[in-house]
């Protein structure tokens, strides 16, 4: 596969700002994956790190737990050589794609999309001790179940010991890689990378459901639809993006941690963060896929000493962050820059980096630049005729009083 020559959208997630509220997850879930065999899929999910993540044990050579041991699902490229100090994800060389990863198990690795027998709350229970009605339980395919895994199974669990326990949130979507392992692994040539924006898609007409892509993606962001027998993945909300509207999970983020823009737009926030300040790092560049989602690594808070005093040592081990974001030295350098710039702001000197990271307005974070504006709202491109109609003007609003 030759290098991607098309135009590329790039993305930054600032982990220092993530609230772990999962609004992104719900935005994605309700827009794309709440139906038609996708119920178990989370194209966007947020997981607590360190942990096994979602699906359980994603990664190559090591998983994302503190020690990296336990189940590892595999994928990515063999013999990847990185260039020291390089943070744009580009690799020096890579070997063949690894298709022999494990198929994640629906129940144990993804988690089944359980449901509840809500209607039970209307039925009386066995005993008429107050009030004696029946409760609701998780069910799957008509049977009561005890769930075994889910998209946020390890919420807040992390590692370390009280009071120096540590954890941070890692929101994940498809990385829309410049050198996708899923694309390299597909023997049907059903996966393609769009020249106009670099979005990686699965052609539903060509896909035969071999699942090489599922096994090859080291981030495990391709999912098999058991109903249609084909693979599916995050589409970066391309119908929105084409019209200048940021993807749903970006638009809905209350923490405003998400940035999107063009790699070739030197004025975009993403360009500044990734290529100028170099404070946004690729997740696992050693997988060799050249991901286009970049992360500002978290600083974390300070450790408590023996008498409850606050020390100067950070609670998140930089070694762990190094294992995620392409080496300890890169992470240390980023943390150093951010702390230095924050210090400037404290002294009343305006920091371009801090202002960019804060991203006050949507236009500061989204630069899709369609139609001469940085971004558009969904309402702009698909106008709603009337926003609100008073009950007295609308007969369809039903009951109006007159009791």
């Amino acid at each position, binding site marked *: 596969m030759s290098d991607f020559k098309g135009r590329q959208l790039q993305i930054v997630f600032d982990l220092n700002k993530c609230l772990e509220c999962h609004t992104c997850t*719900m935005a994605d879930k309700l827009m794309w994956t709440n139906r038609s065999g996708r119920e178990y899929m989370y194209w966007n999910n947020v997981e607590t790190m360190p942990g096994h993540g979602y699906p359980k044990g994603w990664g190559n050579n090591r998983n994302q737990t503190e020690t990296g041991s336990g189940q590892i699902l595999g994928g990515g490229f063999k013999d990847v050589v990185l260039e020291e100090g390089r943070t744009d994800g580009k690799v020096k060389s890579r070997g063949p794609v690894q298709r022999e990863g494990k198929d994640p198990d629906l129940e144990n690795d993804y988690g089944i999309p359980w449901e509840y027998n809500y209607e039970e709350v209307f039925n009386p229970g066995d005993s008429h001790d107050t009030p004696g*009605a029946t409760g609701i339980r998780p069910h799957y395919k008509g049977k009561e179940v*005890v769930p075994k895994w889910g998209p946020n199974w390890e919420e807040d669990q992390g590692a370390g010991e009280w009071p120096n326990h540590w954890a941070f949130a890692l929101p994940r979507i498809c990385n829309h890689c410049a050198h996708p392992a899923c694309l390299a692994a597909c023997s049907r040539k059903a996966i393609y990378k769009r020249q106009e924006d670099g979005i990686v898609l699965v052609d539903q007409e060509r896909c035969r459901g071999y699942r090489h892509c599922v096994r090859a993606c080291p981030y495990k962001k391709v999912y098999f639809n058991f109903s249609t027998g084909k693979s599916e993945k995050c589409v970066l909300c391309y119908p929105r993006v084409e019209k200048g509207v940021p993807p749903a999970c970006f638009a809905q983020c209350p923490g405003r941690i998400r940035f999107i823009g063009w790699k070739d737009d030197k004025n975009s926030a993403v360009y500044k963060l990734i290529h100028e300040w170099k404070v946004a790092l690729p997740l696992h560049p050693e997988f060799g896929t050249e991901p286009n989602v970049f992360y500002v690594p978290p600083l974390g808070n300070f450790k408590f000493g023996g008498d409850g005093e606050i020390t100067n040592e950070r609670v998140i081990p930089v070694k762990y962050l190094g294992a995620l974001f392409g080496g300890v030295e890169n992470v240390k350098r980023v943390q150093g820059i951010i702390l230095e710039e924050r210090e400037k702001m404290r002294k009343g000197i305006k920091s371009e980096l801090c202002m960019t990271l804060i991203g006050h307005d949507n236009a500061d974070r989204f630069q899709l630049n369609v139609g001469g504006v940085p971004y558009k709202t969904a309402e702009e491109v698909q106008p709603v005729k009337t926003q609100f109609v008073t*009950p*007295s003007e609308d007969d369809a*609003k039903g009951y109006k009083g007159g009791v």
Partner: protein
Amino acid sequence: MGFDVNDMEAYLKDAIDKGYLTDRIMKKTPRIAIWHSCNNYRNKTGTQWWRENYLKHIELLICTELRMTGSAQSADYVLSAATDYERWDGRETTTNLNFTLFGQAVKPMFDRRTDWQIYQGLAKVIQEKAKARGIKSILYGKRTIDLDSIYDEYVQNGELDTDEKALKWHHMKSTVLGGEKGYEKFVKEGYVQAKGDGKYGPYLDDAPSRSLRWQAIDKMPGPMKKQKTNTGRFQFYVDHEYHIKLDQMTPKPQYTDKWRGGPQSPRRPDGTPYQLVMNYPHTKWGIHSSYRENQWLMRLQRGDVYLYLNPKLMAEKGIKDMDMVRVYNHVGEWFARAKEWAGLPPYVVHTEHGWDHQLSKNWSHYNNLNCEFLNPLEMAGGKKGHIVYTGNHTGNRVYYETGVDIEKVAG
């Protein structure tokens, strides 16, 4: 805090004697109750005892609810209320400068009515019955309620007989929402910004609004009478006699393990301390019990009620992640699944609150474990500014008063 049931009785008597609390709560038991959007079984401390004793007196229990909560399940009548998406209504919160419209995206499903319609309906029927029976008015405490004109009064002789009229009336009464012009914007755009003096600070065009600005930043008393404290400022040191007596003048750090084994350790009736203290603060997954059993949100958790436990404690008790755990003390029991969390001190067990009875094994609840039915600090009153409780509220529990033990059980 170091008090027992006898102390509690003594506090209650003292509070009534001194007029801190009204004596009505002791004199008259309720007979008919209407619970409005209030999941009482879920939020009352000492739930099972409260429930048992309360229901002894209640002949008729009516519940206005959006959904079938644990509380609604035991009501004689459930008045099915329209949700926020189904009603033409507005919402303000004290800390936000916007008054926001619920634009009635869809009409109410089934036979749901908005709460305004529900109580209008009740008032109308009460008025009709009162007239038919020739009842004019009744005395309630110091108030007279005119039953034969209660509906006319409620809707102000037809002026407020629809949600739309009531909302506009409310809007126009406000001095900060901009009158007719503000209402126009409110209806058109879905919100209107308050301008002028709010409860906790001014709402200005050219500056961010800060909650508690007057008290915390300007060191001024709030403009509304009820916000006034002794100093006129936000009060951190409380010098009420009950607070002094119980050594609770300031908020205290509650996470230190220094107290363990000390005088504040929750104890069994035989005087020995419990191994664990139970904590259950606000949840991130709902607003109290609302949305707590929502399928989409539950899939982002463990699917079942869970209890955070320190891994060392789990090893000691032979409990594994997702095992069913019985949490118990001499007051009651509750069941939840274990979830390992190294961020927790080994002597604390922790769950996020808001779980409804329906979700727990045997219809049990974490509020079955509370030892403190009433919080003596909430019997405080008198001429101490804002520290006034009515007695007719849900007692806030005291964090380090709920001692528990745990064990692994089947399930």
